[in-house]
């Protein structure tokens, strides 16, 4: 399967100040039964974005004008903790988000994001908190994510370098997926399996 290649991103950053924002908040469990063909962007942050009657919650950041067109999430620590639901990543991606910057991520969310064209960017907590302050003080601030260079350009002009494993970077930049690559290794897997099973597992 091919994904869209990840391009340099120059976009409005949406501040999420709540730490431990779990995947139940990103995509409530009742939407897990929807087939992937749905636009999961409609369900993104559903219970934070909308009231019971379907009306917008004015207080929620994505319902505020400069942020509606945001493409980058700027979040507090442990973003995407909790459930392994890949639907949380689909929801962010379908809505239009392409990167999430946070001091830390739920491990499973991090892995899911990389496989779906959503770039998770871990940066030191003091840097992220400072960026959150800047963005909140000037709503609509833009940030630039350059995956090739592995840098984030903050609204204050400071450049921050981030880590990503070389393979995932390659896949994102080229729009490739990992499974295609792994399927090319089935002979090696079968060899390993033979030895593994002979050794008694």
């Amino acid at each position, binding site marked *: *399967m091919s994904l869209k290649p990840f391009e340099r991103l120059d976009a409005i950053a949406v501040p999420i*100040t*709540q*730490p*431990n924002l*779990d995947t*139940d*908040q990103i995509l*409530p*469990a*009742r939407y*897990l*039964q*929807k*087939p*992937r063909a749905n636009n999961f962007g409609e369900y993104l942050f559903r*219970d934070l974005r909308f009231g*019971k009657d379907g009306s917008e919650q004015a207080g929620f950041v994505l319902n505020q004008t400069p942020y509606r067109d945001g493409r980058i999430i700027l979040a*507090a*620590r*442990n973003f995407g*903790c*909790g*459930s*392994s*639901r*890949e*639907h949380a*990543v689909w929801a962010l991606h379908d809505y239009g988000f392409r990167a999430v910057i946070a001091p*830390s*991520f*739920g*491990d*499973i969310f991090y*892995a*899911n994001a990389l*496989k*779906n064209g959503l770039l998770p960017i871990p940066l030191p907590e003091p840097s992220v*908190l400072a960026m959150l302050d800047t963005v909140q003080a000037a709503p609509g601030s833009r940030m630039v994510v350059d995956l090739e260079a592995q840098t984030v350009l903050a609204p204050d002009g400071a450049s921050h370098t981030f880590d990503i*494993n*070389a*393979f995932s970077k390659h896949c994102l930049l080229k729009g490739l*997926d*990992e*499974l295609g690559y*792994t*399927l090319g*290794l*089935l002979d*090696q*897997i079968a060899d*390993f*399996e033979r030895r*593994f099973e002979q050794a*008694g*597992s």
Partner: protein
Amino acid sequence: MQAQQAPRTLFEKIWSRHSIMQRPDGQVLLYIDQHLVQDGSAPAFEMLRQRGITPRVPSRAFATPDHYVPTDSRDLATMADPEKRQMATALMQDAARAGIRSFDLDDPRQGILHVVGPEQGLSWPGTVIVCGDSHTSTHGAVGALAFGIGATEVCQVLATQSLWQRRPKTMRIAVDGRLAAGVCAKDVILAIIGKIGAAGAVGHVIEYAGSTIASLSMEGRLTVCNMSIEAGARAGMIAPDDTTISYLAGRPFSPAGKAWEEQVGRWRALPSDPDARFDREANLSAHEIEPMVTWGTSPEDVVAVTGRVPDPAAAGQPQRREAMQRALAYMGLTPGTCMAEVPIDRVFIGSCTNGRIEDLRSAAAVVRDRKVASGVAAWVVPGSGVVKAQAEAEGLHHIFRAAGFEWRYAGCSMCLGTNGDIGAPGQRIASTTNRNFVGRQGAGVRTHLMSPMMAAAAAVTGRLSDVRQLMAGGMA
């Protein structure tokens, strides 16, 4: 050769034995011994179909529906929502088509995968176990490396029986000393999460150690490892010992005969070497652990039941203060309130955290000869059909029913409510589950996490209660 090797942890022994190859970026292709498949897996099977691939090693997969099954009957048709019915139906069809062994809804052994796996002897020490569910960490209790994965990874495991993994760091959490009466494994793990935080173990595999952990039954160990993910850990594990081996002996899918002897020999060599080094260490004393209860919307928001609702004003960081205020507003709690004065509307005993026989026994011991408080709806949902049958053989269902509990069929049920078992907005639930997230048990529902004994105590008093006091007769 053994003598020349650097001391290794339990994790390192399993990791290196399952490493098929390493990529230049350091990621390892890990062989998967056991793939547990739940009824949320339809998207993964769909991905597989789109590529025209069939599961490569169906004998290394096992399926049972748990998230989308009714718990008031065994008839899928009783579920009004066709999408929900379709999830369980899809799993049974996908498993049958792929030749994956499954316990369907009409099988008396059906249940929550993380209860069924160990119970059936499908989860072995020294193996790598994955499932498209974050609570897969549960199986680490037998000394396995077990972790949750997303749908794309489920698809990859079905297609290749392998997964690319970044090598996690290791963390040893030692708990020493004897637990007091009324304090159990659930309190231990809640205390650990309270201490290290919901992100305390991100990027790490935890090995639980120390005399308290060693003294826990298998059921208790499964509870502890289950909530590793709630501390952010990739996985949690406990070295196999006599408790593990006697638990696994004679289970339907455990090795038997000569193979059993061979495997036990391997399992005995798995515990971390005495001088093995961990990237991080943490310690707790069992004496400090009281019955715990959560007050907020993250499992890290936890206090002893003897404590009070904390005051956000006392929080050091503004970010923490804001998070606490938000949590208390959702939970409808006022700072300074005694936890043991908070009234509840519902009780849920069950889930992959606390739906095992020992959990039901401990709750029944509290409920015996008592009544569920007026106005409280209380449920017991056994973790599996086998647990249910065992509990009924012991007469536990009579105790629960006589007290006014509903005695239901096995499934995930109110832990996340995907099958429609949810609370009403504003209801407050004493729950033996693993997540008190906003809306987890239904929109606007307030969840307090606690042990089965504590949930049983809440059921009979109608409020959060110290089970020790109730059992000592100090409570009306």
